[in-house]
């Protein structure tokens, strides 16, 4: 049995944890220990080789990025069984839009959903801090659609030739678009190289231009401000029956030894992502807390949220050259800030990419004749001419209380802990609107195609249909302990020294990529922890 500990114990080493640890290291003198279930994965020096094999064969560039027996089941859209240093953001695309002010007050504005216990304005400084820590490159959109307190820390990713053409088309369709903000260094930043257009941001950036949490861990470990303990799965939090204070955590090594580990600390921070944070709270039930810790409201593991999308391919009478920097896109937040006085509710983002769909070589012509050699190339040259745009809108889905996971006794890890079984469910108001919302989005894309003299090639909702992307929830924040798990700062209503960071605390998931917000929310919590210790 090993015992480790520090004043502040952070569970999980994902992107939220990394930025929270960095904030705490700068704003407190307390010792910080971080416990991560998985090992370190592919070192930076090996990422060029990993990229090569990903491009050649589709191999996973992240060695040992999961534990064989620790997984969630059911509808786990947006979730992979990811457990290694840096968490899911070792794989992420680095796309970092902010939510819009409306997200925080849908109930006040539209009478649906739940207002967050804080506003966009309250979060703005932490958005800025997240953007500065991660080095976000972005272009300020029209302020009414894209409000922010300070400029982006890094200049935007340039709008490439293809996107310029698509931007003109969007303008014709009445849509304002701009360079999508991304965690990609457009100039050398904090030791990271300038982006080199390698175009494999998702899943692996060989140059280090894309922010990944291991960079922060490296710096924190080197500075000796943080001890990072890897390969250790926290399996229980132990609470004092009378005071509710967390007195320790217990877990096991995830290597072959399986050794027991005790983790001692004064302050415990759950930053283990949207599934594993509430999972640990439920697993930690005891006589004084028979429904799990922090669960007076019965809402731990509930109100799992996310958004869905409609995407499409549109053929246009333009001349594009697919492959210029295909992972970069244009964004518009025009429809995220729409108002619906007495009308139906739909809020969505809009993204535009170049696409090679329909522009590739083919084996047979329209008559079924085999195309070989120069005939194949001649046919391909014809097909390659012109342009295809990829469009996609994430739309806002409000979560049902019973959008949740349960502990599934039929699937257990090596220690016998039941794994989560996930079911996402739309709130009734979202469910009722869904057919209309999706048809509105398809109509928008049809209108856009028409405005450019083009044609819709395909329109589809995302693969798992019911699935929710950029999942959040499971420990929702609120002021009322009977309807929320943590307060507006992320502190558990029931345990004064237990905090939950980032995604799990969000009452809803907006309609754009969520990770920047998870980190900003985590930083807001870190600022409160720093004041409390």
């Amino acid at each position, binding site marked *: 049995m090993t015992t480790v500990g520090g004043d502040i114990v952070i569970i999980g080493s994902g992107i939220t944890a990394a930025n929270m640890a960095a904030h705490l290291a700068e704003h407190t003198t307390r010792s910080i220990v971080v416990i991560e279930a998985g090992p370190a994965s592919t070192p*930076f020096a090996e990422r060029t080789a990993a990229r090569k094999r990903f491009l050649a064969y589709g191999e996973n560039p992240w060695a040992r990025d999961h534990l064989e027996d620790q997984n969630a089941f059911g509808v786990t859209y947006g979730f992979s069984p990811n457990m290694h240093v840096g968490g899911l953001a070792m794989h992420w695309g680095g796309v970092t839009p902010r939510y819009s002010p409306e997200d925080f007050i849908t109930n006040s504005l539209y009478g649906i959903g739940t207002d967050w216990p804080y506003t966009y304005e309250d979060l703005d400084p932490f958005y800025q801090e997240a953007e500065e820590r991660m080095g976000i490159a972005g272009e300020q959109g029209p302020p009414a659609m894209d409000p922010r307190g300070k400029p982006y820390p890094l200049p935007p990713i340039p709008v490439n030739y293809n996107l310029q053409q698509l931007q003109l088309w969007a303008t014709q369709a009445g849509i304002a678009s701009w360079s999508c903000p991304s965690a990609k260094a457009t100039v050398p930043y904090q030791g990271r190289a300038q982006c080199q257009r390698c175009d494999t941001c998702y899943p692996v950036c060989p140059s280090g231009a894309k922010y990944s949490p291991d960079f922060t861990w490296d710096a924190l470990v080197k500075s000796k401000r943080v001890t990072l303990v890897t390969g250790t799965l926290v399996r229980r939090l132990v609470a004092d029956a009378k005071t509710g204070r967390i007195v320790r955590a217990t877990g096991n090594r995830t290597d072959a030894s399986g050794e027991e580990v005790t983790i001692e600390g004064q302050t415990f921070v759950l930053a283990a992502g949207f599934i594993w944070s509430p999972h640990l709270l439920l697993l930690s039930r005891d006589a004084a807390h028979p429904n799990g810790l922090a669960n007076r409201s019965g809402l731990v593991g509930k109100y799992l949220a996310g958004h869905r999308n409609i995407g499409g391919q549109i053929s246009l009478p333009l001349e594009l050259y697919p492959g210029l920097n295909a992972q970069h896109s244009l964004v518009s937040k025009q429809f995220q800030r729409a108002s619906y006085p007495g009308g139906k509710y739909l809020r969505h983002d809009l993204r535009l990419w170049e*696409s090679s769909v329909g522009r590739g070589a083919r084996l047979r012509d329209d008559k079924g004749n085999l195309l070989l050699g120069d005939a*194949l190339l001649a046919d391909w040259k014809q097909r390659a001419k012109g342009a295809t745009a990829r469009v996609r809108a994430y739309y806002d889905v409000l979560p049902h209380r019973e959008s949740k996971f349960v502990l599934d006794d039929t699937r257990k890890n090596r220690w016998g802990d039941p794994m989560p079984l996930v079911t996402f469910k739309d709130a009734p108001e979202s469910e009722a609107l869904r057919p209309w919302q999706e048809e509105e989005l398809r109509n928008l894309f049809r209108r856009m195609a028409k405005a450019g003299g083009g044609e819709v090639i395909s329109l589809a909702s995302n693969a798992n249909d019911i699935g929710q992307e950029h999942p959040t929830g499971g420990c929702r924040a609120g002021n009322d302990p009977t309807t929320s798990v943590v307060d507006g700062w992320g502190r558990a209503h029931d345990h004064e020294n237990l905090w939950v960071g980032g995604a799990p605390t969000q009452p809803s998931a907006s309609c754009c990529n969520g990770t920047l917000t998870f980190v900003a929310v985590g930083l807001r919590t870190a600022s409160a922890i720093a004041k409390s210790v």
Partner: protein
Amino acid sequence: MSDEPTPQVPSRRAFLKVAGTVAATTVAASTAGVVACTPSDSKGTGEAPAATGGARGTGFDRRTLDALGEVLLPASLGSARQKGAVDAFVAWVDEYAPVAEEMHGYGYADIRYLPPDPAPGWRAQLEGLDLLARRSRQRPFAELDAEGRRAVVTAALAPFGSAAIPDALGAPHVALALLAHWTNSPDAWDLALGAKVARDTCRQLQGVERKPLPLAGGDA
């Protein structure tokens, strides 16, 4: 697939799933202690995926394969570039690591693996092409004239009626695999587009706003 553009990778085949339902059986009595770690430096404990691949020497009959390349690939490439494309294909097959872990997608939570070694099947098909040439035209495939080779390839590909070129790794015939490998290369895309786009190449961010230059020296 959702979040970002679908990367240019072979499609996923879920023929072999071992998502985390299997409980580990070996909890050995090791005394390994809890270690602090530096995640991304070269002393990190990650195992490079590159180390799992290896030159296996898949033993294609190069004479027949080169002849097949001459039928499939544009003659306007010139014989050196045709041969270069075949070399690249052979190297790619040689370096393949069967049943390696696929990149995890967005939208599923099971671990998926790449296919087993396709080389033996492709090698047999190559031999089959040669046998077909010998039986139907009384000469080895490599010794047939262009028209004879085309006829043999057309017959061999008759069962594959689809217009789409499959992913190279999932190609049900060696001819389709070779064709897919070439048509997926940045050079082939440049030829088709008539411009120097150099997809998948790492270079400067500067200049990305300019229209790509036409291919130097005309195109094939």
